[in-house]
């Protein structure tokens, strides 16, 4: 993340003499504003005083750094555009423009607030980089994000033309777990980890994205909402309606994502919460006080032996024996299976936390993870390019693939 020209420094706060020097003289619409940029000591009696605040000026300076290109995708909460730095058209960005939501009466949308709040604080090679935020005159907020043209982790295992094996899975899993560890070290819960929120960069590394549901760790005893995390990836404590939970909710999601990489299908595909639970019971066993002290006190806990109205049996199940896990997740290897079992532990107190995940012997066992530049990725290879061209007609460089970024950047539409 270091050497990219895309990481040009933010304009400095207007300390003495700290004015950005890379102003482009060509920018026409802003000539007026620039006239007003002169330090406050000049005579303010200029007839052109448009009354630009210092803050407004700083904002305009940021906006000026980028050129917005064509629209890549649209969602209910934001549009995503391709963009680049004005001074360097080859350094690409994705500009996520938050829409004004007429239905939300309380101003700037919470998704945007959360995403901006947390991404501004988190700087890590495996977390999507928020370069900047600016607003336009008409009160639209735009997020300038890293340009990630190579799809996402879900598209990857779904793509039948890509083949990968043990070492590649380990590489992706390792980057994902480092990203999540970093969030947790910074006291941030992601709360929406899933394959299609994990984007893939041009260099093969993965980037955890979409922090629209994130929050800081709560003080002990303060309730949180259980209605987070896409159902396939939601841990049992949230399905049971827990209002007090810890960072290991994200670990469960990571476990599911890693398992999906290994079996190249969804692990817990479900239409309802009850279905999700019964699939979890199938693999991990039915939670009872013995394997998860306290579980029976959770709001939506249903003890075994009752029968659901839709006919799905709820007789207590035992966890699948380790041999079944090893067979089903053979691509993870024995150590990988052990890690997975630790991440998919029913009892949140016994589930591994991010530090323990990173300390697991899986990472040190052979084979070593594939170096990221050798990882397969969508968007590389002839077939993929052909597909892109088909989809997009002529399709300029990377448009088809970038289209994917746009879609992936905006999942709030699916949350409703």
């Amino acid at each position, binding site marked *: 993340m270091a050497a990219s020209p895309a990481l040009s420094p933010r304009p400095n706060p207007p300390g003495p003499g700290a004015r950005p020097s890379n102003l482009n003289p060509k920018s026409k619409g802003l000539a007026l504003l620039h006239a007003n940029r002169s330090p406050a000591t000049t005579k303010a009696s200029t007839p052109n005083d448009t009354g630009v605040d210092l803050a407004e000026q700083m904002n305009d300076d940021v906006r000026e750094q980028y050129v917005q290109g064509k629209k890549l995708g649209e969602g209910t909460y934001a549009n995503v555009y391709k963009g680049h730095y004005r001074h360097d058209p080859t350094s690409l960005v994705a500009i996520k423009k938050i829409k004004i939501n007429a239905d939300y009466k309380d101003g700037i949308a919470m998704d945007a607030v959360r995403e901006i709040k947390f991404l501004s604080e988190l700087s890590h090679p495996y977390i999507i980089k928020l370069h900047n935020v600016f607003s336009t005159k008409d009160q639209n907020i735009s997020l300038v994000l890293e340009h990630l043209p190579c799809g996402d982790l879900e598209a990857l295992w779904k793509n039948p033309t890509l083949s990968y094996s043990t070492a590649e899975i380990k590489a992706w899993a390792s980057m994902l777990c480092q990203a999540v560890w970093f969030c947790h070290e910074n006291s941030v819960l992601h709360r929406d980890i899933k394959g299609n929120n994990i984007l893939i960069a041009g260099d093969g590394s993965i980037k955890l994205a979409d922090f629209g549901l994130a929050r800081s760790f709560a003080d002990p005893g303060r309730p949180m909402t259980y209605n987070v995390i896409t159902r396939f990836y939601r841990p049992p404590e949230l399905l049971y309606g827990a209002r007090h939970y810890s960072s290991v909710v994200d670990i469960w999601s990571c476990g599911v994502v890693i398992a999906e990489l290994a079996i190249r299908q969804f692990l817990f595909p479900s239409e309802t919460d009850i279905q999700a639970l019964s699939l979890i019971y199938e693999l991990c066993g039915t939670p009872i006080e013995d394997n998860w002290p306290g579980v029976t006190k959770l709001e939506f806990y249903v003890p075994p032996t009752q029968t659901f109205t839709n006919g799905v049996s709820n007789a207590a199940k035992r966890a699948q024996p380790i041999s079944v896990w090893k067979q089903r997740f053979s691509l993870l290897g024995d150590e990988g299976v052990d890690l997975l079992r630790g991440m998919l532990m029913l009892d949140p107190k016994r589930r591994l936390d991010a530090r323990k995940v*990173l300390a697991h012997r899986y990472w040190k066992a052979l084979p070593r993870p594939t170096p990221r530049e050798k990882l397969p990725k969508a968007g590389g290879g002839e077939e993929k390019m052909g597909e892109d061209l088909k989809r997009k007609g002529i399709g300029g460089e990377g448009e088809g693939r970038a289209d994917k970024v746009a879609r992936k950047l905006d999942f709030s539409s699916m949350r409703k």
Partner: protein
Amino acid sequence: MKLTEDDIYRTSTQYRHWSFTHAQLDAKRLKSNVQASERVKAAVARHRAQRNLDITSESGMGESSMGSGTETGGNTPLAQGLDAEVHCLSVTEEMKLVDTFCERALQLGSFLKFPIEVTATGIQFLRRFYLLNSPMTYEPQGISKTALFVANKTEGHHLTLEKYAGAMSKTTPEQVQAAEYIVVQALRFHFDVRHPFRGLKGAHLELIEMAHGKAATPPNSTQSAEDLQNSMSQIPRKDGGPAAEWTVSDLEKRITDAYGFASHILKTTALLTDSYFLYTPSQIWLASHLLADEPLTLFYLSTKIPSDSDLHTKLLKALRACALLLSSHHTFSPAHSTPKEKEAREKKEKQEVSALLKKLKQCRDPDKLDLVKLNQAQKRDAVSDGGDLEESKAKRRKVEREGFQKEADEFWGPELPKNGNGAKGA
């Protein structure tokens, strides 16, 4: 793997963008003040010229200024006659006003029963806002309400705008919202504020453990938990005093008292000063703890850093400077100030503030008087020249249509309406 607190803090926006030296703070405030003053004067002159023109054209007489002040009424600076000099606020006066509204925001937060982080964040938003803006441009009463509301959102407290505005007299949701963009823009979209509360709580728990002889000592520590407990029981009562003899329960009380005092400072005084700009959260809580119980704090530090190290000296210097900042604030009331002194001080304070508010009325930027109107105008522009609103409407309708279709296709048909409409039909 573990990151240190310092590693984490150094990547925060608070450290990278909102930490300053005294000199930098002064320079920023001066710059904002000068710019705002110039602008107020220019805007007032422009308004006067404009009105002069209006009068001239309306009356058809070439006559100028006399008596026109009566025409506008209201309390704009224009009302005082055309040639009157506009007396702008000084930096000190601006600071006084901002400080006052920080205190009022603190009261508002407790009135609304906000958790302290929400209020604390709101107050820091307000202080950050007025580094780049002047009360003459944006008056602090309205901005403080907006800042606190934004904090309510960024801290995930979720009090709705309607309820928020409803809880205050003479406040409409539109007023609170009108300044939202102005505020978030001035905050440079940095919504995360690092507070010292959790750090203090952590130290408190740690001290209690030490007192019980159960402290978790670092792996290369020369002292065992018992050693720590021993030396702790001999902490002098006062700094430089003779070694004392503490029982565990007395020690526990002492630790808890210190925590209570320090915690109070963090929730009041620390928020109302520039401490967040000048110091890190851990420096702030350590300084508060130092004010609460110096020997205990020095003991605590000595368990982390050898007392004879350079780092220790350097740290203590910073802590003492921070402690001085806190203890010289008027809300820091040591035991020896009498109620009468306090009352007199508050009275004087009140007079000063009301005089300042009066002065502010005379030097408000006439272009920014009605933020609600300005905000509406900007939104109108957004609708007329950007297609986005229309687009989103169309999209929403499409999503609704598709959702309906999907429901209808499902085996049981669409879901029945929830509110007894079904019963009516039956």
